[in-house]
């Protein structure tokens, strides 16, 4: 089946098109990684269009959609999730969401990405790519460090004080993480972003006097 994969959980927007079959894994036909920063909403659909053109395919050829569910900065993350949901809905396709950290690197590792506020998103993995801890959001001192450390090299190295090897979400990684659900789309869970944090919202204090006696 032909699968459109996308992820907006990090500053790098990733879109790929892959041929996938149960058992035989994914063959990536086209992929684009765009250093989009906070412009995911502007650049995502043009990038999807470009990736389809790169591979000589059109929307009508798609059989499934895969999206990263984060964790990641909320506003950009939602752009990817709602785009995947809308494309799949419009074309009547199954859609599968995966943890974005699962799609970074491979083998035994700790994946870290920038969670802002001096914290990191992180997860650890066994040699067979099974997630063993996380995803979680924590202060650097609370991150379990199973070597090698991969992911956001700048934020990771800075906050952990040890080198983190740069690695990003890839189409192959998204497909690998989605494989169990792609094989049985009926088992795919709801597309809920991995926010890991509650919304910032403080109930206002009881009415304050506007004037003093």
């Amino acid at each position, binding site marked *: 089946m032909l699968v459109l994969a996308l992820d907006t959980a990090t500053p790098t927007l990733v879109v790929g098109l892959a041929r996938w079959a149960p058992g035989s894994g994914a063959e990536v036909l086209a992929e684009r990684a765009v250093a989009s920063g906070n412009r995911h909403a502007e650049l995502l659909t043009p990038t999807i269009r470009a990736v389809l053109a790169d591979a000589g395919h059109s929307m009508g050829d798609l059989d499934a959609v895969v999206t990263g569910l984060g964790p990641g900065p909320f506003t950009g993350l939602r752009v990817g999730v709602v785009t995947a949901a*809308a494309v799949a*809905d419009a074309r009547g396709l199954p859609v599968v969401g995966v943890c974005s950290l699962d799609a970074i690197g491979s083998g035994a590792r700790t994946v870290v990405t920038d969670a802002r506020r001096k914290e990191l998103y992180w997860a650890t993995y066994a040699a067979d790519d099974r997630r063993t801890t996380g995803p979680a959001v924590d202060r650097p001192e609370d991150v379990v460090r199973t070597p090698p450390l991969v992911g956001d090299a700048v934020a990771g190295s800075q906050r952990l004080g040890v080198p983190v090897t740069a690695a990003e979400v890839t189409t192959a990684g998204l497909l690998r993480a989605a494989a169990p659900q792609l094989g049985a789309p009926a088992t795919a869970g709801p597309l809920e*972003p991995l926010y890991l944090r509650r919304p910032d919202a403080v109930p206002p204090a009881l009415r304050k006097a506007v004037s003093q006696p």
Partner: protein
Amino acid sequence: MADQPLVLGFETSCDETGVGLVRGQTLLSDALATSMAEHERFGGVVPEIASRAHLEAMVPTVHRALSEAGVTAGDVDAIAVTSGPGLTGALLVGVAAAKAYALALDVPLYGVNHLAAHVAVDELEHGRLAEPTIAMLVSGGHSSLLLVPDLTRDVQPLGQTIDDAAGEAFDKVARVLGLPFPGGPPIDRAAREGDPASIAFPRGLTGPRDAFYDFSFSGLKTAVARWVEARERAGEPVPVADVAAAFQEAVVDVLTAKAVRACRDHGVDHLVIGGGVAANSRLRALAAERCAAAGIVLRTPSPRLCTDNGAMVAALGSRLVEAGVAPSAVDLGADSSLPIDVVSR
């Protein structure tokens, strides 16, 4: 009618997830999900809560709009979406969804101005607007007076609030009076039992030297709070109905006076009032009275269409398609402070 374009509209600028369908100027469906109840205890809309709710509600709301209209996604000819002004994170959910549906359905996309959409929605009930028209938009997020020579290309700002939006003043005064959020409907109800002349609250920006088309509600809100506090300090009961009526009268007196004056000054004999505050019964009554006296034709959408919804966006999108306005570029984004004179982008 079937040869007119079927337009799907998305609205997510604040706390309402709106998806509507129109064909030409005919309203087919108007599906709405709201996160209002989740904001209630905060006394105002919490952007992150609204954004999360938009994402959750998006696809189900599209489905409701399509099924209410008895059409399928494949029948859609064009898509319109509010691209501003509004809360950035909230806007982006709608913009991204609309872009994805447009891409997947291979139809043109129009990123439109929320305020112009509030004007356009009236056409679904009352037919083509007379142009030029004066439009007054009053809600929890905006208070604007506009001159509209051409709704698809030429919308000119005459004035706006310099502090609180009109709806915000209702919310804050409701809080002072111990009434629920949002404050518009409970104040409207309470005011029916009260005497609007019982307390003389100030009319903001109505002095001879003030910018006549601008609004100010902050001073009024403070005056109400002071008045209530003075009562409380004196150990006297607060006459909630009278305060609500007097406050509401001060707001609608200013709004209608400025709208009528804008019509007169510009030689325009049509006025449209939209936005959530346009659902206020006293505003509708006083506007009708003053417009009749001034020979102005007043148009107000039914209360259901005054508040934010997807049909208003579809209505404006339909006008843009008909007028041959170019669709938006593929890199359309959201602009939280989109200027009112940008009708589409």
